[in-house]
């Protein structure tokens, strides 16, 4: 658990982060969104002390980060920045091995870990371990950047616009990878982005910042249905708010008993995708089933639509 308490950063007259307090639960993804210059990066970089707070403190599992020597603190926290910051003079394996080497792991353990991570990110070790970053595509470099941050098995991962430079397809893939890895290792992730779509897709909770202040810190559904007046409302209050809401819920949340004709839908599909299936099929209802199981439930257009507005 990370507890951020009254964190403030001032440089001269300007306030970059103004009295921010929030709690990030272990094993969750928290996304920080806001316009450019809102202070998102500053907030993130105060967690691993790349920036020293003017006042306030950060507790990781109850321990004040100021009590941990800064290098040791950073060895324990994965850090990914936009444009990945890979070391151009080191191979992929050398890049990933950075923190394990700083920690003095033995060669065999490092090699095993590097191969494990490359496998995890679907980069064949035989092909990629000895390549230099400049020989990789943007998407591959980004994966190596995340693998490097995960090398020493950190419990906490900080990511500053990690997918900013990727095209939409690779970006979607990278987000899916990140969710899979987070589920598998239970890593706590704090991720900065200014892409609302990404925030709703990844975040267990979303922190909205503007002008150095934390305006709202809530679950995506709360953010959509009960946005704080003013900036947050304008930020999430666009015409596609119902669709965002739909993509947060699953078919299993909206299904009704009884069979229906047609191609079955998986209960883990989100409602937004289910609605487009229904529209495309020209049907009013479709059966819900896992793979080839026989359907005992169905999903209907009206059932879906009721999830696209705030609960009364």
């Amino acid at each position, binding site marked *: 658990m990370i507890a951020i308490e009254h964190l403030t950063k001032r440089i001269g007259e300007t306030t970059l982060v103004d009295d921010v307090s929030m709690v990030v639960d272990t094993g969750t993804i928290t996304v920080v969104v806001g316009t450019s210059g809102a202070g998102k990066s500053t907030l993130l970089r105060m967690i691993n002390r790349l920036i020293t707070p003017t006042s306030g403190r950060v507790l990781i599992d109850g321990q004040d980060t100021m009590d941990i020597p800064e*290098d*040791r603190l950073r060895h324990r926290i994965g850090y990914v920045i936009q444009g990945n910051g890979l070391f151009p*003079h080191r191979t992929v394996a050398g890049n990933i091995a*950075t*923190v394990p080497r*700083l920690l003095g792991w033995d060669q065999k353990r490092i090699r095993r870990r590097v191969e494990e991570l490359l496998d995890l990110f679907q980069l064949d070790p035989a092909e990629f371990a000895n390549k230099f970053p400049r020989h990789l595509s943007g998407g591959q470099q980004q994966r190596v950047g995340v693998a490097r941050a995960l090398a020493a098995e950190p419990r906490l991962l900080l990511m500053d616009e990690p997918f900013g430079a990727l095209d939409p397809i690779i970006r979607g893939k990278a987000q899916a990878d990140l969710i899979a890895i987070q589920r598998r290792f239970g890593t706590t992730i704090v991720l900065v982005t200014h892409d609302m779509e990404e925030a709703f897709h990844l975040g267990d909770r979303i922190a909205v910042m503007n002008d150095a202040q934390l305006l709202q810190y809530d679950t995506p559904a709360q953010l959509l249905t009960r946005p704080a007046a003013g900036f947050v409302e304008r930020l999430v209050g666009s015409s596609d708010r119902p669709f965002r809401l739909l993509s947060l819920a699953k078919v299993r949340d909206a299904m009704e008993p009884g069979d229906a004709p047609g191609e079955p839908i998986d209960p883990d599909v989100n409602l937004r995708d289910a609605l487009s299936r229904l529209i495309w099929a020209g049907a009013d209802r479709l059966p819900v089933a896992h793979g080839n199981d026989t359907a005992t439930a169905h999903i209907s257009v009206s059932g879906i639509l009721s999830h696209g507005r705030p609960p009364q």
Partner: protein
Amino acid sequence: MPDTTRSRASSVRPSLDRLGALVTLCVVLALWLAPFVSVRANRIVAGQPLTAIEALPVSAAAALWAVVLIVAAVALLVRSPWIRLITSVGGLLSLSVTVGFAASVLTPAGDSFARVSPASGFWFLTLGMALLAADSVTRLNFTPGLRLAALALAALALWLVIASGAWDDLSLMKEYASRSDSFGGAVRQHLVLALGSLAGAVITGVPLGILCHRLPALRALILPALNVIQTIPSIALFGILMVPLGFLAATVPLAYAMGVRGIGTAPAVIALFLYSLLPIVANTAVGLAQVSPSVVDAARGMGMSRWQRLFAIEIPLALPVVLAGIRIVLVQNLGLAAVAALIGGGGLGTFIFQGIGQTAIDLVLLGALPIVLMAFVAAIVLDAMVDLAGGARA
């Protein structure tokens, strides 16, 4: 698309032809009109210029003409860089053997005063062929390793020509023969001056460059100061140093015991060292400044300490630029070290200034040619090192 390729090719072609035409013109005119060698009764009188036809027996002259015409034709008509390279290297080898042969033919038997030296025609032929060879090498785009191998081959060829005695009757080799006991020492002293000052400049200049990078205030102080030193003419700087060093030697026995004198090696090395500082310090600072901030940020974010960052990330990434500074310094020092002879610093400059005093051009060349050669070798070796250092991420 095909159109753009074609237009690019045709825009390259005229410039290719220009170099080829220039080389052709240069070698043919040089062989036809300019003197190939010059013959003098002794080492200081004016010489009598002879063209290749006048200087060589008919068969040898014909052979030389054939070689030169082949080189000219290849330069004009053939585009393949490999063929151009092989032809021009072959031409250079035949040229070097022929000039030695001309010297033996023209030297009267038993006459140890007569001097035969290459004349303008020979130098233009060499220049033309070397130009062709250099252009081909550039276009072949050799890897650094291959360039070093080619350099080693060239050195071997030069050594073979000299060791075979083919040049023994040339004036330069005669001059060498009469100085052979001091030549090695002069070369060694020249290297001590150039490399010693370089080593000192690297040892102090790199840390200074790092400091300049870290402390902009220091940078604003140091770089202009070093810039001023660069503008002092070498002779003046040697002169300026003679006074304090002479004083030091006279008053501090330890300094005297360590070899510090107002004249000689000490002021020479110190002057060269001072000239070397600017390129080393400036390039170190610039090299560090161009390391991408996101890379440094990532290193910091992963918990690398200041020193770990410096040695594992920043210096390796700045290395190509630092090496480029070392290259500048080494080439510059090899040349400047010649001036050290004027204040008793020794080195190859000794021959140059003695030669000027005696109006013996061969003696000047005996000092100057090895300097040119060493600077050339240093440039190639360090360029290769720069490429190797930057190769992985270029």
